[in-house]
């Protein structure tokens, strides 16, 4: 209880509250501008959080991402351009509602059910994380090895459309993660005698490059024109009570699925939204209404994408394994702030964990007033000239990446990863596994080598402990199942089919 009170004191300071408010406004803005994603909002915030104490730093990221995921619905509903990929699943549906004159209802659903989903995910985080941490404390290098491998496998096989390409980017990430001195043997690897590479490739500039610079490059080559929206929006909260009474099952289902998808490493809010929208249509009593501006799917998917955000924090806090690309960045920030994630954080610094929980609740509640204001101001935000905004973001990225280590070399990393991520994405390679590989490579190697030394090279020791054996079975089943599915899919599809460009 003392820890909870301490956490409350840590959060209820003017610094934290002001930081939350400002980052909330920033998140709304980034989410509402098409082309800027919630992950980009996090990446852009990192250089600022670097200079903040731990609790406001985490609060800034939590608030900004929660707001951005909701705000992505706004241009989706009004212009049929999703603000963030997490809104893409139901953009057609919400735009259809706007065309029917129900724009405010579509936006209201996004706001209210995002808040409900976010709070649900937070409750799961509060309940599940400490319970899991008690189990995790008993884990040895064998369990951690399988857990990391399972997490990486999930990122490749479950969450990517093209598992082979996901596997390739994962391997690239793992290779890049092995650069430097920091390996169990302490031997400089792939450094080519460059002192800049001895401590490895800096993760934060790499992430800013992958998530922000690649977007900027895509923007410069984008030939489509953004439509303008001028109309005024009416009352957004009208009719929400009725929808809550009409779709309680859908709200719960979306929240549960969203949280579960969030917990899976590698899968984030966007996959949660796609899956729950599809599930809503499949299980609906009126599936024929989908596509005509029907609120049911919006309720379910709107709740799902925000609950996924909190879900992703469960493995991040308990094991140090990110649930999505946002928590991948967060883990970097937590290490930077000496709030090393893992089960020990629950024992050594419970107040920090409770502070994160409180921040989550506050951020989701703050979403209602800020979201309302953002919807009201949406016509102005949507008119924001992106050709002025993007160059400013580029300079911000350059300064931000430099600020982490005050090293110009990091800017080469920024540029290299930005261009590489753009080329990879253009060719259908998912980049999230690469980031997970870079982040978790050291953990995987350390636990692998430690286990091999402990067991004197016996592979059997990897499956002798019950939890390790369970995790091993899961991992192998996932590999086997995905391989079988891929083989079946190829068998059913004639090989002469041209691949869409």
């Amino acid at each position, binding site marked *: 209880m003392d820890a909870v009170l301490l956490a409350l004191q840590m959060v209820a300071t003017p610094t934290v509250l002001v930081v939350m408010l400002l980052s909330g406004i920033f998140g709304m803005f980034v989410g509402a501008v098409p082309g800027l994603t919630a992950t980009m909002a996090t990446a852009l915030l990192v250089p600022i959080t670097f200079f903040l104490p731990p609790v406001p730093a985490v609060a800034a990221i939590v608030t900004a991402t929660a707001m951005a995921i909701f705000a992505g619905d706004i241009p989706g509903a009004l212009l049929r351009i999703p603000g963030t990929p997490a809104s893409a699943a139901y953009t057609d549906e919400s735009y259809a509602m706007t065309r029917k004159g129900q724009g405010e209802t579509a936006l209201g659903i996004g706001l209210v059910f995002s808040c409900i989903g976010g709070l649900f995910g937070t409750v799961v985080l509060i309940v599940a994380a400490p319970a899991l941490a008690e189990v995790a404390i008993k884990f040895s290098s064998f369990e951690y090895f399988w857990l990391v491998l399972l997490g990486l496998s999930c990122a490749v096989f479950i969450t990517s459309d093209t598992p082979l390409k996901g596997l390739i980017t994962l391997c690239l990430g793992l290779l890049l993660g092995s650069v430097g001195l920091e390996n169990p043997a302490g*031997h400089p690897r792939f450094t080519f005698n460059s002192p800049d590479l001895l401590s490895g490739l800096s993760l934060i500039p790499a992430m800013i490059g992958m998530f922000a610079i690649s977007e900027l490059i895509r923007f410069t080559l*984008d030939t489509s024109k953004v439509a303008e929206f001028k109309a005024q929006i009416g009352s957004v909260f009208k009719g929400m009570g009725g929808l809550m009474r009409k779709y309680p099952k859908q709200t719960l289902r979306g929240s549960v699925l969203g949280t579960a998808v969030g917990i899976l490493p590698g899968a984030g809010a966007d996959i949660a939204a796609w899956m729950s929208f599809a599930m809503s249509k499949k299980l609906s009593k009126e599936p024929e209404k989908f596509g005509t501006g029907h609120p049911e799917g919006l309720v379910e998917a709107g709740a799902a994408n925000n609950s996924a955000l909190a879900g992703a924090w469960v493995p991040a806090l308990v094991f140090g394994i990110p649930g999505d690309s946002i928590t991948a960045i967060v883990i970097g920030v937590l290490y930077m702030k000496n709030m090393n994630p893992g089960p020990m954080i629950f024992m050594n610094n419970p107040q920090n964990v409770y502070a994160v929980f409180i921040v989550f609740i506050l951020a989701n509640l703050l979403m209602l007033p800020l979201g309302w204001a953002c919807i009201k101001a949406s016509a102005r935000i949507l008119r924001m000239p992106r050709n002025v905004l993007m160059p400013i973001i580029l300079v911000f990225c350059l300064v931000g990446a430099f600020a982490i280590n005050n090293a110009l070399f990091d800017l080469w990393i920024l540029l290299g990863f930005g261009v590489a991520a753009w080329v990879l994405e253009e060719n259908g390679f998912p980049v999230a596994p690469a980031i997970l590989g870079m982040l978790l490579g050291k953990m995987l190697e350390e636990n692998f080598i430690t286990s091999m030394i402990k067991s004197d090279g016996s592979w059997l020791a990897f499956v002798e402990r019950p939890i390790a054996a369970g995790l091993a079975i899961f991992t192998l089943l996932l590999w086997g199942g995905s391989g079988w599915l891929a083989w079946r899919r190829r068998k059913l599809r004639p090989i002469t089919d*041209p691949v869409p460009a």
Partner: protein
Amino acid sequence: MRIHDSLIGGVLLLLSLAVLWHIQGFPPAAGQQYGPALFPGLIAIGLGAASAVLAWQGLRTKQPWLVLSEGLRSPRHLAAFAITVGSMVFYILLSETLGFIVCSLVVLVALQWACGVRPLLAVAVAIAATLVIHTCFYKLLKVPLPWGLLQRFAW
């Protein structure tokens, strides 16, 4: 820009072979069976195998070797792309000598111009944004942004 899967697979296969060759030079860890070459070696084998499958799958499809997106075929967009990458290289190479303020102004004006912003507006935005970013990072967050040419006027 879509490149043929076989090309990408082939290049990555070469990369994994290069890694496998390079790690042969890693010394074994003192007193241990498992040296620094083990882990990168396993990953390189995985990467090599996956790249070979990708290359093989690519060969079985009737995919063109290179498809340029609409943006890459439009001179205006291509110029904007080149200016974006070029201005980053410019900043990295010259920010120590010219200083943050000069480099930021050049980068912002060039990029906005490339994106079709009116010159006067571009200059005004560049000055305002540079001063705001400089104040935030240099004054408030104490990031040592270089002054370069403007060292004498440092504030």
